[in-house]
């Protein structure tokens, strides 16, 4: 199946990719990671990107989050052409507009839960007291009000991922990118984490892109994009998830 734009006419598009390509290496060692991605992501939707390892999922979210430059094509995120941003602009853009949730949580081990959650606010220049207050509120919202001073090493995997989600949304980003958020968690915990994720994004009409292999969480998706060999081969509505192999 050919990759194709999938936005419905009139929808508010948060991410728009047209013919995006990206290769690694050079000459004979050149490997194409993205071979012409066309993708629209709507405001407020939860889009899951699935596919086998090495199909280009991570490269795609790296391009969307301005961490990586693409080689050709157009990629607009929140109305900004990512290719035209300077390194400094990209950093500021990420700090204000994008939240990240990683598979390995990537919490800073020396910082307590509340300090970890406050990091995006500190990066934005919010004073420590205000950042801490906001982080405490958010942790209480997701049921970790009693663990705010705990170090990551003293939290369970599920608790760590909830802290990571709180960290990702504390600065109220318009776009949330989650990389295998449930892969390191058991089914029940993964489900609970996704519930937290949904509860924190639904109200704010935030767009969420989730890269995952975990078919158990497909039920949370509004749409599911399947990637293979650097291309989006298929996009289905969440209700049709049974069609995704």
């Amino acid at each position, binding site marked *: 199946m050919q990759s194709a734009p999938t936005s419905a006419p009139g929808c508010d598009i948060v991410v728009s990719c047209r013919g995006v390509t990206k290769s690694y290496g050079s000459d004979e060692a050149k490997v194409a990671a993205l071979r012409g991605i066309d993708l629209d992501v709507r405001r407020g939707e939860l889009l899951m990107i699935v596919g086998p390892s090495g199909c280009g999922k991570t490269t795609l979210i790296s391009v969307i989050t301005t961490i990586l430059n693409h080689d050709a094509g157009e990629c607009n995120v929140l109305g900004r052409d990512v290719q035209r941003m300077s390194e400094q602009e990209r950093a500021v853009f990420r*700090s*204000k507009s994008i939240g990240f949730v990683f598979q390995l949580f*990537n919490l*800073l081990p020396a910082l307590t839960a509340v300090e970890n959650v406050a*990091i995006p606010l500190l*990066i*934005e220049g919010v004073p420590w007291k205000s950042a801490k207050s906001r982080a405490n509120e958010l942790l209480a919202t997701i049921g970790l009000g009693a663990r705010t001073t705990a170090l990551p090493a003293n939290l369970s995997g599920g608790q760590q991922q909830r802290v990571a989600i709180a960290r990702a949304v504390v600065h109220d980003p318009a776009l949330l990118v989650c990389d295998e958020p449930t*892969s390191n968690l058991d089914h029940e915990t993964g489900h609970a984490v996704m519930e937290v994720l949904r509860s924190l994004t639904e109200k704010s009409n935030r767009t969420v892109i989730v890269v995952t292999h975990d078919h158990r969480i497909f039920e949370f998706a509004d749409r599911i994009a399947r990637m293979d060999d650097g291309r989006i081969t298929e996009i289905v509505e969440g209700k049709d998830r049974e069609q995704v192999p």
Partner: protein
Amino acid sequence: MLRVAVKMLLGDRVKYAGLLIGIAFTSFLVTFAGSYFAGFMTRGFALITENPRTDVWVMDPAVRSVEPTTNMPSSALDRVRSVEGVSTAVPLALGRADVRFPNGRFQSFQVVGVDDATLAGVPPLQDGVTAMALRAPDAVIVDPGGTTGKLQTPVETADQWYGGPPRLNVPTRKLGPGDDLLVNDRRVTVVGRARALSRYPPRPLLYTTYSNALRILLPERRRLTFVLVTAAPGLAPRALARRIEDRTGLRARASDDFKADTVWWILANSEDVGDIETMLSIAILVGFGVMGVLLYMFTNENLRQYAVLRAMGATPQRLMTMIFVQAALCAIIGTGLGLGVCAVAGQFLTGSDYPFRMMWFTPAVGALMVFIVSVVSAAISARCALTLEPGIVFSGR
């Protein structure tokens, strides 16, 4: 974000302790080495330090330090005394002599001949003996001058002053009052032991009066090494020194200037100093190498955390600031610890005649060197953090 930087640093106690120990060790090493070196240098001008009442030292125009020296004619003393502004001027003779002990052993001494009238230049003495003891005929006062075991005389009378070959392996004791020595075949009697400052290079010292020094030293046409001058009240030593030079044609230096001259002369001319410098430089380089590697490793091991911060939008400048803050904090605390340990060590060592002198510039040099290495290490580490690909935080990388 500086709070985050500090917590990242303090969070890993083992690494943090390792860093602090490395930096403290390096600053200790540098400061200790500097103090050790300064100790040697101050020993070089011990003769000047032992004459605190002397404002100006007058010498042959060719002399640049208290060692080596060449002598002036005895008339120089009167010429100096005739200069306006000179309150007192006394002679001091320095000479080298091979001194024979009662069992036949010989030892090279520096002979210091002090003014007969004032006995100016005699260091503090042991056992309640006063400098007046030098007024006895052929009297000398001895001091090890920074050496050990060189002032030993036979215990048994039977081993002393006999004819025949020397008896070098007989039981000995410390030379003391009443013992005799031969200086250039002239017998002298030890009347006391001094507590003189240790010398660099170390050598036993033999204090006697100027007139007795002329008698026991090998005859020379000129025997006056220095004229020790005190300035009239209100007259600056440097001004008096210039005036003496103008009026007599001799070289005259204020005490502080003469100390500095001596240090520079030793630095420029002593082969021992070169050896010491080489050894200390190697030790310091090793210390700095260890410290630099530790600082670099700390940042390198935290690269993933920096990548997370970069992904979340921390600018390269902000990351660089964090790394420099971490390095600066380690450097300040580590340097403080190192200097503290060095000062404590110095307190113990100064009582044991060890050449340790923690002068103002030694901790300053230590701190400066640590600062430089910290900045360089932080810069190298920061380069790694700034050039890393933040995408490594994703699972696919």
